[in-house]
């Protein structure tokens, strides 16, 4: 469980061997290799974009790498509002709304619960707190398939199976190991003097947390936010198992649209739908820069 954010050098300058002259044999090899690699990584995004902007006739005759001769936004419109899943034909818009409805409470609940837990076990250690924390961390490695059925039964007994609340609880539970680790490590690194001073001033457990720690921990909260938004948005397994078809998140609807057996395959609509579903994490990723790297590095335990 390497928390990479603890290597301060990780995001600083390189320490490898010295660079060579600009056109040395080594440099040419280096840049050719990099070009091939970048091609492999960038290609799918390029293909998604160009395919989604072509009409079907152009796709049938042209090649998938070529930019569109005639740009059309029809596939995007169809993907969003009229594409069929085999049951209904209302596109991804319903799934998008469901995903938002799942995302907001799940993100807030999981971060709230995990930050308080991380605070309790870092600054208010009690007998057994380390044991529970260790169980939690090892729990992160247990395949979800092992725990999923008993959870279905529990939610059914509580009358929450198939509801959004049920799914929010599931996301809160499975977000806990990584987030608690993240917050625990961060709060542990804060000086104890700060905490003692607040105690002397008469602040209690919640007072210290809300008035002292939270305001000075905004960076770690944003890391957690990025981690949870991408994680919950990209979830497929919990969405398909713990919700009813009318609550299916976007990923599940996307899969149902693209892999629907009926009808003619419209590859441009499929790619527009795929791109639409990937858009939220992509925007978060490009906008957040190094925070995303810190998030996934700390979230490494998630595996």
């Amino acid at each position, binding site marked *: 469980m390497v928390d990479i954010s603890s290597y301060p050098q990780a995001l600083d300058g390189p320490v490898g061997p010295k660079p060579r002259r600009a056109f040395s044999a080594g440099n040419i090899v280096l840049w050719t290799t990099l070009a091939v690699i970048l091609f492999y990584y960038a290609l*799918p995004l390029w293909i998604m974009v160009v395919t989604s902007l072509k009409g079907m006739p152009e796709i049938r005759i042209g090649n998938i790498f070529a930019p569109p001769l005639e740009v059309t936004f029809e596939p995007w419109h169809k993907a969003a509002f009229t594409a069929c899943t085999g049951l209904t034909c209302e596109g991804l818009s319903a799934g998008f709304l469901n995903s938002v409805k799942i995302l907001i409470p799940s993100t807030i609940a999981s971060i709230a619960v995990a930050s308080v837990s991380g605070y309790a*076990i870092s600054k208010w250690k009690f007998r057994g707190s380390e044991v529970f924390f260790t169980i939690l961390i090892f729990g992160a490695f247990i395949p979800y398939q092992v*725990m999923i059925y008993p959870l279905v039964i529990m939610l059914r007994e509580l009358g929450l199976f198939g509801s959004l609340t049920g799914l929010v609880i599931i996301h809160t*539970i499975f977000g806990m190991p990584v987030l608690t680790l993240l917050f625990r490590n961060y709060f542990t690194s804060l000086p104890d003097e700060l905490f003692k001073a607040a105690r002397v001033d008469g602040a209690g457990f919640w007072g210290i947390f809300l008035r002292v720690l939270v305001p000075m921990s905004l960076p770690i909260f944003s890391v957690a936010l990025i981690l949870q938004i991408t994680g919950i948005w*990209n*979830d497929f397994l919990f969405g398909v198992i713990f919700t009813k078809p009318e609550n299916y998140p976007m990923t599940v609807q996307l899969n149902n649209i*693209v892999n629907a057996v009926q009808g003619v395959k419209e590859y441009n609509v499929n790619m527009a739908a795929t791109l639409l579903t990937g858009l939220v994490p992509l925007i978060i990723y490009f906008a957040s820069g190094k925070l995303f790297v810190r998030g996934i590095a700390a979230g490494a335990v998630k595996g």
Partner: protein
Amino acid sequence: MDDRAASKAAARPNPLFRNLSAKIAALPMIAVALVVFIGCTVWTVYHSFTKSRMLPKSDWVGLDQYERLWATRRWLVSVENLALFGVCMLVLSLTIGFILAALLDQKIRFENTIRTIILYPFAMSFVVTGLVWQWILNPDFGVQEIVRSMGWESFEFNPLYDVNVVIYGVLIAAVWQGSGFIMVVMLAGLRGIDGEIWKASRVDGIPAWKTYVFIIIPMMRPVFVTALVLIASGIIKVYDLVKAQTNGGPGIASEVPAKYVIDMMFNNLNLGQGFAASTMMLVSVAVILIPWAYLEYGKKSDG
């Protein structure tokens, strides 16, 4: 750190009520650790020894479910696929991840841009990844057709519809999605290595590749072990990717254990088989995790 109110009320406060707010705040964490990670796991393992079918039952049948499981062709195919996929994924991710990290560590220009391009697939969901690569590998429009239209008429590259190699089609997508993350882990490891090592090896005239192979890689052992554990625990969980890219097909050629479990529990209503298969998943995680935990934390007391 005892609770002031409690200590005023009684001369010798009940230790259970010391630090009470922290304990209450940690209740969700304790509940998740005990009820979900331990309770649900034990429940599933126990029920894998019963003859549960449509509903969980407690009639003990010993190892019957496991005997049936290991006599099922689909399970055997799943395990074989996972082994092939797993070995290739481990080797490729570690090699590509390390080489990329070493390339990025050469004081090259545009390092941030290159890292951004290599890492963006990691922000994408497995569903999106699977669908994009399903399209790129499409025999009528994708890579195969492009190469053929360039003049090489007999070119064959159709992994997704070939029973023998379909799992490698999934592999290409998985490597695309996950190797950037391993690169970040490796880069953090490389940046953690003392720059003096490089100076010393230059003074001695040792070529860079030799320094990497004989000095740097052995020094990075912990980073490699962490990366290995992360990749391995991810491999066992592979579900959404297969579900979206091939749905286990053609036939059952690309089935994986995680998908076997979900299908048995929620589609085939054969709970006993699902429990037995998920217990096997748990066993394989334990086989990876226990030696690692022993190596990492066994020696140190501060785990």
